[in-house]
């Protein structure tokens, strides 16, 4: 795979005077710093609050410098906080999210690869129409699908199960994964497939030996997209699961909507950050490829 670079060969600033270069750079960095601070502020505040004692928050409010730092809220969030009838912290819901997001990501990506392969290299009469209908799914609002899904899950006996959520996320994700993979695969030269046909390779052998080895960039893009989307999904979790079957996102609501009179802002803060860690990690490790994959898309 050719190394993609995001640095432009042409530097427009180089065409100005030295003074102008310095002024422009200074302005650019000042603006960037401002926006970065603006964007990071909420996360910073949540992070600070997760280390504060509850009375401290109660006295001085959310936006204040902590008087003392404590790990107690993190311990509580992880192990002992009472949520939806159990006092095990957010761990069971965390596990639910993993059990939901990992298989749904893998299955939807696998089918996306296969769909994309067929729709780009084994076109048949009407395949453009099929592709058109599949991509229509990208534009359907999730709210529109709630009733049909309730009907399907009910009939399949999957209401309030992890499997039900896996099914929903797999099917809902197929539109995206198929679109991504198909658009990536159309750039693989036809001659490769023709050569492989003459070399005696069939549908699966071409897929395994030629197409898949060329696919890491698009697999990374698809996995990041799917995993973060599924992990962060709130709507389906809230609607189709309850009690101890909920994924972490909908369980977090139970934290704030508890019947107890006192809200544990510090535990909420810690739990929120914990819930956000997996997608963040995925971005951190795959983000470089994500941007490449979305912008490049060409096979050379």
């Amino acid at each position, binding site marked *: 795979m*050719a190394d993609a670079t995001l640095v432009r060969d042409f530097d427009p600033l180089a065409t100005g005077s030295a003074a102008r270069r310095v002024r422009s750079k200074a302005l650019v960095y000042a603006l960037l710093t401002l926006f970065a601070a603006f964007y990071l502020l909420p996360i910073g505040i949540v992070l600070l609050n997760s280390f504060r004692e509850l009375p401290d928050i109660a006295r001085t409010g959310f936006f204040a410098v902590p008087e003392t730092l404590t790990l107690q809220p993190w311990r509580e969030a992880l192990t002992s906080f009472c949520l939806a009838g159990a006092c095990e912290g957010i761990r069971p819901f965390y596990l639910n999210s993993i059990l939901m997001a990992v298989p749904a990501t893998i299955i939807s990506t696998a089918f996306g690869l296969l769909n994309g392969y067929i729709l780009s290299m084994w076109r048949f009469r009407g395949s453009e129409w099929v592709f058109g209908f599949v991509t229509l799914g990208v534009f359907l609002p999730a709210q529109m699908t709630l009733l049909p899904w309730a009907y399907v899950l009910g009939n399949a006996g999957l209401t309030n199960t992890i499997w039900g959520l896996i099914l929903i996320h797999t099917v809902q994700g197929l539109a995206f994964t198929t679109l991504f993979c198909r658009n990536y695969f159309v750039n693989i*030269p036809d*001659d*490769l497939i*023709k*050569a*492989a*046909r*003459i*070399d*005696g*390779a069939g549908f699966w*052998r071409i897929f395994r*030996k*030629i197409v898949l*080895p*060329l696919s890491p960039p698009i697999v990374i893009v698809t996995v990041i997209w799917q995993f973060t989307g599924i992990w962060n999904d709130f709507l389906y979790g809230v609607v189709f699961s309850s009690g101890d079957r909920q994924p972490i996102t909908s369980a977090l609501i139970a934290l704030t909507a508890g019947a107890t009179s006192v809200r544990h802002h510090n535990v909420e803060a810690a739990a929120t950050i914990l819930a956000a860690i997996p997608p963040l990690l995925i971005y951190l490790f795959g983000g470089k490829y994500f941007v490449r994959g979305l912008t490049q898309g060409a*096979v050379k």
Partner: protein
Amino acid sequence: MSTLSIHDLRKSYGALEVLRDINLEARQGEFIALVGPSGCGKSTLLGMIAGLETVSSGQIRIDGRLVNDVAPRDRDIAMVFQSYALYPTMTVRENMAFGMESRGVPRAEQESAIRRVAALLQIEPLLNRKPSQLSGGQRQRVAMGRALVRDPKLFLFDEPLSNLDAKLRVEMRTEIKKLHHRVAKTTIYVTHDQVEAMTLASRIAVMHRGVLQQFDEPQAIYERPANLFVAGFMGSPSMNVLPAVVASLDGGPAVEVLDGLAVLPLPPGTPLPKAPGQPVILGLRPEHFVVPHRAQPEQTVLGRLRADVEVVEPTGSETMVVLRLGSKEITARYEPVDAPRVGETVEILVDMAKACLFDPATERLL
């Protein structure tokens, strides 16, 4: 017995007919060039031989076996693509082994075939490299190596040299010719470059607009082009064509060119192609023009023309001169020492024994 025979082959996409009435055959070990301008259907024809395109009607036989509906893998062919189509994620060795692996050839046999071909093409040092680490010429060799390892009945080349720079292209052309002499496999070679076709092929099939124009040995195609298209396409610079009228000169057959500007004799005894006074088209190659003092005794049928020199193009070994003849321009080949200067009026002889006459209506050779 011919390795490849094609009978009344036709290809259409819906109402659009891209190939019609193609009849071709390649004898064992022959090198056939399919040549024509882009869009003439030559690549489609190659794709049909390979099994990558369906046959609308007609027959394709490889070694006598009808293969119209046989899958590419079972046709016993190998193909070299214009883009080389090397599998980018595999090493050179894996690229060469892929086809054998698909067919379940034992590993030891694969290894010996790869070694044999790698030695033949001198690509042993490249075996563990990926295609992206190879130069254009090396990729070209590997692509040929991948075709050679399988020892097929028929080799198909689809414009294999057109992605190389001019110098490398000439080198690889010679390589391919040498290689063909050594392995003596029946080869079908598609190209748009008439020089490639002339230098490589034992026979050339000239195609235009989906129709086979002429199928013959290179020299025959060059000297006796079947029609005006072939005459114009093969040879560089192109054959000069002049409108002419059948006439007589000193009692012998002749043609009158450019409204009586000159009368050129035809070889005595030539049956008149048409009745006197009928129009024909006269085709003359640049080398058919002779400077008067270089005329050889055996060149007995010479016409004489006077013309103004318009452009002089030296190439080193020869000089091409564009001459103005009335309203027409013709290109003549000169020895560099004989080359006239621009603006001069020169006298030049035409070796009419080699001239071609075409019918203006059908554009066919008379």
